[in-house]
């Protein structure tokens, strides 16, 4: 196993595998789980390989007397207890780890005191990602800037097929769906550019359904927000409807967000009655709490 591992590590150009090179606490939890389970599982693999090798080495017909008659063996309570007991212990340990990590990745990342999380709405449409910053009142397409050393909450939903929002080095993925908003917690410890993509097959343009993530210190982030507000064009409903058209787009930036005129499927009904047919009349009734719709309408 370790030999195979070495060979492949060399083949991949000595670069650490993305998932095992975490840059934030959530991805760190996951990478630790993965590494620990690989080590434990290696023991099982080695045990099975060893027993198999011994059996094949010792009990081959060619090594035995011609008239040797193998005995009838029903089973042995002790042997079977060990074969059940050890796996149960391993599974129990892994279960403990798994449950602990579940609660860790589903909560705000640890270690940032009581810093207010930055909320970003990330919506997918065929085959793009729209990022809305409700507090900053700006919106980007196919790229997202986040501050380092601060928890970030991505609110995920989709204008179309189920997609999966994934930034391997910052956190594992989660689905974005048309009838429900999911929350993905993450934080970046290290400034840098990270690969983000949709991991769930969503049709023709799926392979290129990627986005760029750039993590930077809070000060730089604030400067960027100010710059966007000064330079970017406002996002109108017409413009957003145009952006939703199936296809691929480059990166773009807007002031204002789509959250006001096309709210995400969250709230009491979980949005089950609304769909991807954005702009529906009944969708106007649900306004997200985070958004001040009045300011939004000024852009119209």
């Amino acid at each position, binding site marked *: 196993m370790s030999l195979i591992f070495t060979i492949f590590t060399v*083949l*991949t150009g000595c670069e650490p*595998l993305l998932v095992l090179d975490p840059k934030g606490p959530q991805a760190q939890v996951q990478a630790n789980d993965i590494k620990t389970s690989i080590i434990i599982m290696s023991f099982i693999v080695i045990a099975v*390989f060893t027993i198999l090798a011994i059996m094949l080495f010792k009990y081959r017909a060619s090594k035995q007397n011609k008239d040797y008659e*193998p005995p009838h063996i029903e089973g042995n309570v002790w042997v079977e207890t060990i074969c059940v007991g050890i796996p149960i212990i391993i*599974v129990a340990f892994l279960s403990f*780890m*798994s449950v602990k990590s579940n609660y860790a990745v589903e909560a705000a990342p640890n270690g940032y005191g009581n810093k207010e999380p930055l909320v970003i709405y990330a919506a997918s449409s065929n085959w793009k990602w729209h990022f809305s910053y409700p507090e900053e009142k700006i919106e980007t397409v196919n790229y997202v800037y986040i501050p380092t050393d601060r928890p970030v909450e991505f609110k995920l939903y989709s204008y179309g097929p189920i997609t999966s929002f994934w930034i391997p080095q910052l956190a594992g993925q989660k689905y974005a*769906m048309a009838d429900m908003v999911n929350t993905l917690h993450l934080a970046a410890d290290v400034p840098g550019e990270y690969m983000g993509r949709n991991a769930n*097959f969503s049709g023709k343009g799926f392979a290129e359904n990627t986005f760029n993530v750039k993590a930077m210190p809070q000060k730089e982030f604030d400067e960027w927000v100010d710059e966007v507000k000064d330079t970017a064009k406002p996002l109108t409903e017409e413009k957003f409807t145009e952006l939703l058209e199936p296809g691929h787009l480059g990166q773009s930036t807007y002031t204002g967000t789509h959250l006001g005129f096309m709210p995400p499927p969250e709230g009491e009904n979980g949005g089950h009655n609304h769909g991807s047919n954005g702009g529906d009349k009944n969708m106007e009734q649900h306004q997200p709490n985070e958004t001040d719709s009045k300011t939004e309408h000024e852009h119209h």
Partner: protein
Amino acid sequence: MEFFERFAIPHPSAPIYASMVAIALTIVAIIAGLTYFKKWGYLWREWLTTVDHKRIGIMYLISALLMLFRGGVDALMMRAQLAVPDNKLLDAQHYNEVFTTHGVVMIIFMAMPFIMALMNFVVPLQIGARDVAFPRLNALSFWLFFMGAMLFNISFVVGGSPDAGWTSYFPLAGNEFSTSVGSNYYMIAIQIAGLGTLMTGINFITTIFKMRAPGMTLMKMPMFTWSALITNAIIVFAFPVLTVALAMGTMDRLFGTHFFTTNNGGMDMLWANLFWVWGHPEVYILILPAFGIYSEVISTFARRNLYGYKSMVVSMVLISFMSFLVWVHHFFTMGQGALTNSIFSITTMAIAVPTGIKIFNWLFTLYKGKIEITTPMLYALLFIPLFTIGGVTGVMLGMSAADYQYHNTMFLVAHFHMVIIPGVVFAMLAGLTYWWPKMFGFMLNERLGKLAAWVIGISTLVAFMPMFFSGLDGQARRMYTYSASTGFGPLNMISFVGAIGLAVGFAIIVYNVYYSVRYASRDIGADPWNARTLEWATHSPVPEYNFAIVPHVKSAEALWDAKKKRHILFQGDYEKIHMPNNSGVPFIMSSIFFVWGFAMIFSMWAVAIIATIGIFACMAHRSVEIDHGRYISVRKIEETETKLRGAK
């Protein structure tokens, strides 16, 4: 012209036109051949109307091998497309169709019939029965499967293949995002085949419960029969869910209902749940018979009784029960929260315990044995280490927090191929080689067989190990291309080499069949492997009534008792044997189902209504038909027995 436009391929290309020509030529060649050699009558009398479980088994086998070829070509196309970055061999649409049909064909139209083939052929023989409980229903099962498979396979030349993945998640598979008839094919073809499978489930449970030889209590059944019993129990519980889900999907697509749409009260997550409530038990429907085959093969060639028979049975029962409690692990990332994920994470990892028991029992069956490495045994011995890799990575995937990183990546693809290929495909090849002499009266060449096993074993590692790494490096599954800067190139190239290796391995098996048909000895007796169970107690090939005298059984290894403990299997004299009559109705009814399915797919309502009437007419015919079967006389039995013994 407008009427015919709907049958056009929405996204044609040269290979598809070439396949159209090839299909047309093959059909012409088959029809011409049958006519020239005057075989129409033979085909109808001996095969299309047969209710003999052995012939039905062989027809399942032929279909499975054809579908293996189809699914294998799909696999090669995918690996070739991904072998180098930015490849232009296939475009996105073709790639999406290819991976969708690869999944459906391999699971539903290759692995399932392969299992059905071996169950059909072996189970009645292993329990000393003359046929299954409902022979005509069995024929209907086969023909429904066959027509479903054919319907699915014409999709790529008529109207376009499904392209929403074998999981066919809504809303992607709904009308809004899948406008071609491809997803209709998915819904209808799998429905027809699935009905056949459900009938098989009922049929085999009845057979195993009611038709065992005298003395064969449940705990004296051979392990393969046990696995078949449990598999069919899972089928009976799981397949109705698929039936309902497909019916709802069909209604969404054809009649404008809103079960899985994202507006008007529909819910896309419902499909994912229903699909996997069937889909996860389906995995165990595939793997349990495989476990049964390994148990037979390892015990036979270790020349020892199976270690821990009782714990084998208990672990299978546990696995079948738990297989219904883990479906959520297919979408840990759907947002159901930490508590739900924790529960399903634990149930998922817990399945590893009974599975582990089985692995250790096989290892201990080797203990103090006299191991002879034949081709089936070689597959079994390759299975243990490779499946262990697949299995432990399954436990890793079961850790839900970490699964957020594995989900939808090549890591997952590597895992399930490392489970299904060593687990199911190796078992099917082992079973095929093992029971081949019983089916056809000659053995496959051992040298070629072992060569193929080694090539396939090593190629499996070469093809799928790299995917664990590319997955952890961020390669999502189902991407038709990737850029050079991702660094996925070398790993995917290795996978492609492995895929070619697998193709070479299967080509060796095909050559082996040809070679053995020509050169293998026909004088092999009834028990060429020196085996332990009842199917080897009758002649090879097997006479239509299976056993001239119903055997008496004292243990799970009836034939071994007869060989070593002077147990007398066949007591008494020949008596006339009651056998079922052949019937053309299953074939005709399934053909009407094919027409019905085709009409539904293309929304040709008049034809669909007429076909529906035809289906009910066939059922009505069965209700009023008087058919008490026929008897084989003692004289006829004596003649057959003398002839078969003379062949030794």
